Structure formats: C-alpha cells, structure tokens
C-alpha cells in the first residue's frame, strides 16, 4: 500500500506559490515520489525533559534584570494524532518577533525597537495527555519585501516532533481577527478556509490567569498514529 500525502491531498499549501516570491526558485518542480509505507521509518526522534533549557516555557523572563514588553499571553492547547490520541512528550520549539514586530536576529533590519528583555525563543514538551502551555507576549506585525507594503500578520512559529516520522511539523500560529490574514500569501497559500482556520488560535478568557495574561488556545493535529505499537526498527 502506498501513502498518498502530497500537500494538495492533505489540504496544505502547494510548495510552488506564485504569490510567495521566495518559492519561485526553491520549490521543486518534480512531484514527490510515494514510497511503500514500510520503507519509511515509523517513528521519529524523541527527547526527554533534559533537552529543555531551564525556564524555556516562559519567553517573558529569559533575560535577568527585566521582563519582556507587550501584551502578556498564555498559549496552550493539545497535540494529538489523526485519531485524536495524545501526542505525549512531544517537543515543541517556539520563535517569534517582539511586541514591535522585530526578531532578535541579525538578518532582521526592520526599523522597530529591539526589546533587550525579549529574545523570542522557547521550548516545551507536551505532558502525558498531549497538553502544553507557554507564556509569551503578543508579537507585532512586520513588513516584508514580498510585495508592495506587504506585512506579515502577527504570528508565532512552532516546530513539533510527534511520535511518528511523518508527524514532524513546522507551522505558524495566527491571532483571531487580524486584518492582515486575508492579505498574507503564506497564510492564504492554504487553499481552503476551513484548513486555514486551523492555524488561527482561539481567544480563551476562561484559561486566562486572572489579572496576569490573556490566553489563546491552539490545538495541533499531527500526522500518523502516536499510540500504535511500533516496530523495533
């Protein structure tokens, strides 16, 4: 049996996306080749808590002497496989711009202030139920050179390792009601509105730590079957 997992079949964005200029010289032109499923590794790499830097789940207090500027937010959710079973102990890596829309990265020369107390990177593991949370600040939007006066909507980058090799995911979390969303070629690259909606976090006042932070819920479904017993190889 062959797996059929082309981006189009999954409802994901095609690699070649004319509105996203950087894809023109980078998207492969030949279709990916499907292999019989037994030739792909069933499982992917795993990490324990020792992988995490201390305090990596709180992006607001990573620099001694101060705290990050901006609207404090708690992002939480559940990571599951396609059957709804928890992706337990999944490593999630996080990176984002600061409240003014600038990354702590030498390649980012946007004329917006750097925040000396916000480096914009974090890590968490999901628990046995597949649940995670991290504390951060709401990122700002920022201009990019893709098209005239193009701005990226506010977003947080997430990288996840599920149990299966096919469960590897790098994606972006967006915020509800952002007027830049329908103008963004990367978000709009996903053809169907229902699939795009999966990348928009839900405002979650009930989960907000009172008088401390707003909360957003962002659930993730990874490919594959986290709880299926796997072969030794």
């Amino acid at each position: 049996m062959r797996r059929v997992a082309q981006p189009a079949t999954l409802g994901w964005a095609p690699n070649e996306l004319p509105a996203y200029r950087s894809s023109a010289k980078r998207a492969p032109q030949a279709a990916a080749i499907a292999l019989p499923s037994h030739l792909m590794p069933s499982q992917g790499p795993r990490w324990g808590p020792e992988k995490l830097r201390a305090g990596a789940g709180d992006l607001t207090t990573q620099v001694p002497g101060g705290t990050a500027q901006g609207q404090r937010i708690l992002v939480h959710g559940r990571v599951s496989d396609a059957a709804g079973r928890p992706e337990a102990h999944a490593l999630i890596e996080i990176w984002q711009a600061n409240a003014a829309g600038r990354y702590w990265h030498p390649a980012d020369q946007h004329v917006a202030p750097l925040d000396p107390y916000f480096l914009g990177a974090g890590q968490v593991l999901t628990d046995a139920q597949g649940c995670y949370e991290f504390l951060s600040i709401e990122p700002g939007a920022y201009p990019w050179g893709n098209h005239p006066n193009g701005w990226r909507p506010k977003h947080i980058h997430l990288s996840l390792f599920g149990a299966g090799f096919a469960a590897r995911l790098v994606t972006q979390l967006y915020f509800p009601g952002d007027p830049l969303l329908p103008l963004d070629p990367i978000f709009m690259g996903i053809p169907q509105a229902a699939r795009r909606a999966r990348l928009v976090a839900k405002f979650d006042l009930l989960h907000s730590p009172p008088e401390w932070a707003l909360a957003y819920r962002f659930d993730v479904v990874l490919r594959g079957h986290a709880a299926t017993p796997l072969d030794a190889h």
Partner: protein
Amino acid sequence: MRRPTPAQTVGPYFSLALDWPQAHQVTHEPPLGVAICLRGQVFDGDGLPVPDALIEIWQANGAGDYPTRGAASGYGFGRASVDSEGRYTFLTHKPGPVTPQEAPHIHLTLFARGLMNPLVTRLYFGDEAARNQHDPALAQVPLARRATLIAALTHTGYCFDIHLQGPLETVFFDV
C-alpha cells in the same frame, strides 16, 4: 480521522530556536557503524547557494536499528543550519541496512524560507553500489534521477549536494 494541522514555512529566522549547539554531531545507540563525515551544499533554481536552510537527518545505527521507542534520547537525529554558502556538515556513523533488502541510507528533511512544506529525501552511499542496485526505494525512482540520491565518497567524507530545482533536481519523497 482528523485532518492534520497544515504546515507553514520555517521562514528566515528559525535559528533563534532551532539552532542547537553541536546538533550536527549525531549520537547513536551501539553498535555504531563507521564514523563518517557527511557534507554538502544546497542550491536553488538559479544554481545559487541557499544560505538559510535547515537540514535534519534521521537514521538507524550500525545494526540498522532506529532508536528504541521510548528512549527519549535524540539518538539517530542530527540538525544543521547551512552557512552563508549553503554548506552543511554532519558527523555521524554509517547506518546498517534497516532490512536485508534495503541499502544503507539516511533520511534528510530540508526546511527553508520559500518552502511551504518540508522536503524529505533519502541519502544513499556511493560505495554501496551493489546494494543500491537492489534497494526497493531507489527502484521507485526513475533511473535517470537516481544519481541525485547517491552521496559520493570523497577524501573529506561523503558529499551530498541538494538541488531544489534544475537539471540536477534532487528526488524528494512523500512521507
């Protein structure tokens, strides 16, 4: 079945979170294979080096076994950002064959700005010509394109360049 959450590009700033110290030095559960250096360069459709790609490798140990499930160790996994000339390097061990039919191979996953989805390929070894000839995954690849998956053994280790487009476009696989 739930539809999986869609991927989005890794963008240009991933090194903030995804660059780990020494992650290009891959550790393994014994038995180890021969220690090898694996290097290469990533090119775009104009033949220019891609200076902002991230490459992850995932492989079996010297006995052809992937790390034991639950051994939350990071064994068998490597990660490297390319440099300003698109070059990457891994220090690892040569894997054994995962099944008797398969030739030794390493999975590579490439992320980059401009790519909405990760690209997955399989690296085979140039000094395993006899086994490569009978590998069931290579057999799925048109003959003319198989060479894009073979790492050449050079005096500085195995060399595996990745071409995202063009006449030498690397073969990528569906996961």
